[in-house]
């Protein structure tokens, strides 16, 4: 160890454990702990620790935002547009205001406001009961002047389509959207093209190609379907605002609230109890969050606003539908020479319907061109959803690569081997192929009989994201109890348990010894739980803080034992001298000797030791991306069109795996969501009326227990030496490859390619029928 200035050099484990580990030297901040060894040398980190709230969750004892009860709590409901496109001519709330039980009324769409989708908010009411609020909505009189509307991507692209934003009307975009969209041209309903990421000379690339494949792909609108609805309880008081909210970013919502309502950050407190999923749809305050606060301010009482299932489906975001045209050129040996992507997607009345950097970045191809467009339709606005962009992007690109392999007569794994520079995915392909039994794979459609089986695979690409505005406090109290505190929230993934593991490892304790306080902005500001960055961002801060507290404790214990602090280690609930482990004190005794009631340290997430690839504001991207390769085995009943996913092998990586049990659980969730996306889910809008016909969980088909295949999760340990924990995220990477892996397996089963999602019996039968008629 050498120290100079305020950094020192340390040697970190480096590489993929199953391939063989190396070491790498990193310059790290002086105040940060020494490198962790690989997981097999650790006691708690990297072990399948049960989540701390498991019992509370399965017994129903867990408290969610909807369970928050306050004295005098009012209940809010939102009146929503019954028309897909209309001008509000008049809105009359007089009868409502006089209604008993009604405490606040908010006009959201005053006269002349244009409503652009069924379910757009018109007015909101807070009343003493849910039923009173519901009844009050019926007393609001609104005159709507209907306008022409368009609810599907293809029609909206036509020059004669009704305009969602007629000339002179600008899309009302969130700040984030304006950053993305401001430079792009609006023609009719089409905004774009966005050509970011293009490189090389595409014409020359295709001229060099000996083989070209070219196809259209379509993906549907998928909704988040969080089992816990969007929910907020807002309590506006003279001395400040307290909000309980089901949110993926407490600190961000606090900032939005302070800005929106002219409050100081210190006057706003945001809390979140347990969450039942967010998948990207609970990343911001949202208009509904604002309405709840406004109603509370008006009523001078706390207000509870909880979406019903229809509101979830209509107005809480969705994954955009896309149409993608991919053209790929390659030499006969499989080396790619050109990839061109033309995409039109729809995020409803919002923007952000692109397909990300998947086709651009997955394979090394010198020539790439991209043109991505947002198409406005009269439907609810999209919001990021688990692997936004890359998930629909992967469905197209990973099938196109298989189409190329088919045309070249190459094994899809071999074609990828030649073009994919990632060492992580190379190892993942090897492990996955072995586990699924890739050598059993036959020619497409080779099975006799009506039920055909097939094997397929697809790859994933996702950024290893880090939020550098991430802080954590660790406290040691005189009775030996240890607390970890951060505003970071658990959207269901179990980050609280992982924090306990990190702190327990440092103190030589068990995870259950650590008391975790999270989800409250009264604690040091933590990162958001979107972009698969929670673990990467907050666990280094937690370890840094724990290490600092440990140093304080060691100094005290060292003095009493007459040794130097550097000679001490914490293990098995004791603090002992490394050379003679019989000498030492129990952790509890050590704590009892504290001069003060507690000692504590707050620490932050420093930059990745090897630097970031990009860093904008609080948001950074690691040097290396996250990989992921999934294999699927399917059977297809060619007489009924039914696809059954029999088995999925998901080979994933997330840097240093912190808790394999929680990671496996997330990967299983990602795979199930991918199966649901591949086979079942689709928001259906009636073109006659503009209404969503399946704004419920009855006709919006979500994967169920009988669709769940055997899911095998193989996890790489991929050490990068980039932070105090070296951990990265898993949520989104586990969702991206599933649908194309299934589609490729379906092709292998029946010899017919399904390029449209979802792959329903109707779609399978139509594809088979087309082939029959061709032959």
């Amino acid at each position, binding site marked *: 160890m050498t120290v100079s200035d305020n950094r020192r050099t340390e040697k970190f484990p480096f590489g993929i454990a199953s391939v063989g580990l190396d070491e790498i030297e990193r310059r790290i901040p002086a105040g940060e702990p020494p490198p962790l060894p690989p997981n097999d040398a650790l006691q708690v980190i990297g072990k399948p620790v049960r989540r701390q709230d498991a019992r509370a969750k399965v017994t129903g004892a867990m408290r969610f935002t909807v369970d928050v009860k306050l004295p005098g709590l009012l209940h809010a409901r939102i009146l929503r547009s019954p028309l897909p496109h209309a001008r509000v001519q008049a809105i009359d709330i007089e009868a409502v205001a006089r209604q008993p039980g009604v405490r606040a009324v908010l006009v959201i769409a005053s006269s002349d406001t244009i409503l652009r989708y069924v379910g757009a908010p018109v007015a909101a009411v807070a009343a003493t009961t849910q039923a009173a609020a519901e009844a009050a909505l019926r007393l609001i009189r609104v005159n709507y002047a209907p306008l022409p509307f368009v609810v599907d991507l293809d029609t909206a692209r036509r020059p004669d389509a009704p305009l969602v934003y007629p000339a002179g009307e600008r899309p009302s975009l969130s700040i984030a959207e304006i950053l993305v969209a401001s430079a792009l041209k609006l023609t009719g309903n089409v905004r774009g093209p966005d050509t970011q990421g293009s490189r090389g000379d595409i014409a020359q690339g295709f001229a060099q190609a000996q083989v070209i494949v070219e196809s259209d792909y379509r993906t549907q609108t998928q909704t988040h379907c969080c089992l816990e609805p969007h929910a907020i309880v807002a309590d506006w008081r003279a001395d400040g605002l307290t909000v309980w909210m089901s949110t993926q970013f407490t600190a961000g919502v606090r900032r939005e609230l302070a800005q929106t309502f002219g409050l100081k950050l210190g006057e706003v407190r945001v809390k979140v109890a347990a969450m039942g999923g967010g998948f990207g749809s609970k990343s911001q305050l949202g208009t509904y969050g604002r309405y709840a606060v406004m109603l509370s301010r008006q009523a001078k009482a706390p207000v509870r606003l909880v979406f019903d299932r229809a509101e979830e489906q209509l107005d809480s975001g969705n994954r955009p539908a896309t149409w993608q045209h991919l053209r790929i050129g390659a030499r006969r040996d499989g080396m790619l020479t050109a990839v061109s992507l033309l995409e039109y997607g729809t995020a409803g009345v919002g923007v952000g319907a692109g397909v990300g950097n998947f086709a651009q970045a997955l394979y090394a191809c010198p020539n790439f061109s991209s043109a991505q467009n947002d198409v406005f339709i009269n439907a609810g606005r999209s919001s990021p959803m688990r692997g936004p962009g890359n998930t629909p992007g992967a469905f197209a690109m990973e099938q196109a690569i298989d189409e190329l392999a088919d045309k070249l007569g190459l094994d899809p794994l071999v074609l990828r081997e030649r073009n994919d520079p990632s060492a992580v995915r190379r190892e993942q392909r090897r492990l996955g192929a072995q586990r699924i039994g890739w050598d059993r794979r036959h020619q497409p459609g080779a099975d*006799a009989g009506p039920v055909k089986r097939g094997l397929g695979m697809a790859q994933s690409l996702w950024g290893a994201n880090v939020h550098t505005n991430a802080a954590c406090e660790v406290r040691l109290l005189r009775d030996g109890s240890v607390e970890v505190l951060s505003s970071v929230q658990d959207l269901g993934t179990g980050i609280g348990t992982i924090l306990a593991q990190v702190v327990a490892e440092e103190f030589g304790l068990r995870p259950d010894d650590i008391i975790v306080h999270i989800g409250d902005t009264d604690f040091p500001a933590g990162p958001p739980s979107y972009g698969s960055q929670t673990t990467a961002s907050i666990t280094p801060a937690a370890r840094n803080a724990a290490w600092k507290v440990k140093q304080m404790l060691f100094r005290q214990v060292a003095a009493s034992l007459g040794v130097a602090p550097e000679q001490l280690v914490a293990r098995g609930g004791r603090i002992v001298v490394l050379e003679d482990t019989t000498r030492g004190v129990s952790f509890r005794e050590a704590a009892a000797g504290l001069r003060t009631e507690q000692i504590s340290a707050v620490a932050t997430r420093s930059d990745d030791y090897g630097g970031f690839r990009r860093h904008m504001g609080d948001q950074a991207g690691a040097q290396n991306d996250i990989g992921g390769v999934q294999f699927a085995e399917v059977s297809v009943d060619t007489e*009924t*069109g039914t696809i059954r996913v029999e088995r999925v092998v998901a080979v994933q990586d997330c840097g240093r795996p912190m808790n394999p049990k929680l990671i496996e659980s997330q990967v299983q969730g990602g795979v199930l969501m991918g199966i649901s996306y591949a086979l079942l889910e689709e928001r259906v809008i009636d073109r006659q009326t503009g209404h969503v016909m399946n704004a419920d969980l009855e006709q919006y*088909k979500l994967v169920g227990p*009988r669709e769940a295949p055997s899911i095998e999760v193989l996890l790489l340990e991929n050490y990068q030496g980039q932070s105090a924990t070296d951990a990265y995220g898993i949520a989104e990477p586990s969702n991206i490859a599933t649908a194309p892996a299934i589609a490729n397996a379906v092709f292998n089963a029946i010899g017919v390619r399904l390029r449209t999602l979802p792959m329903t019996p109707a779609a399978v*039968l139509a594809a088979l029928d087309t082939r029959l008629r061709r032959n």
Partner: protein
Amino acid sequence: MDRFVWQVARSVTEAATLAGRTVAEAMLADPGQPAAPDCVVLKAGGIDLLDLMKEGLLRPSRVVNLREVPGLAAITEDSSGLRIGTLVTLEQLATHPALRQRYAALADAVASSASPQIRHVATLGGNLLQRPRCWYFRSVAHHCARKGGEHCFAFAGENQYHAVFGHEGCAIVHPSTAATALVAFDARVELVNAQGVPRSVPLGAFLVGPGIDVKRETDLGAGEVLTAVLLPPTAASTRSVFLKQAARSSSDWSIADVAVVLDRAPDGRCQRACIVLGAAAPVPWRAQQAEAALVGQMIDAAVARTAGQAAIAGAVPLSRNAYKLPILATLVRRAVLQAAGAPEPENGR
């Protein structure tokens, strides 16, 4: 949901006297208006009723609970067949030994429906009287023909789950899988009026298509209570099979289902066949041409295939549901083969 009065009926005649109108009639009231004071509806399991009320499609002023009425929840058997009380739950039916043994298609049909939670509460009577699941019908925003409006939205709309037969002015499919099997067994329903007078009619006649009346699915009269379902006895040689395909296998409505009941002579020839298609038409749809293709035949793969094709003859698919036809033909073929104990060719299942 609006406030309503909860009342417990103690007898069938009391319930029949209170029932001022059928749910179908009550739903013709303006959905924007609060409940009329005389809007009284009967509740058995309450599964569909609660759904209709939550969606704002039905606003009763009074709900009369049938569940306390004695004698309606029993399954009894005598020489005239099986009598299933209207309050028997779907779960009881699915697991009843006599049903499993002699009316397997019915037990399987019921077991394939809904979710375990719902099957434990839902009753057979309620299942037969439930309103259709058509998403236009279930939407307050769509004033469709079945709710007293001008037209059926499905013909020019999202009709992937709609009827391929018998859609005269309305393209709903009958929602009950139990009904598919019951019609195949020639079941009758027993109805009792306010005077306590019973009548019994074949289920196939009790369920009415839109050609007869687009605003109701049954012949239930106001002031009538469906008290039981009557199943004629089966012969020792009777074999029955029910097959269903849904968008997903977990807790979902049928895309297509079929019940096949076969009687075979000692020489193995088919003596009598009853084939009913579900989720194919506004009522359980008897596939008589398919039945005719079987009678007098030794059933093998070729005969079964002919029956499957005959079952979809005359279908008129809508813009987005032609895919149902090969599925129906396949289910009929497979069900016939299974009922005849003939092995499926190749690896079909």
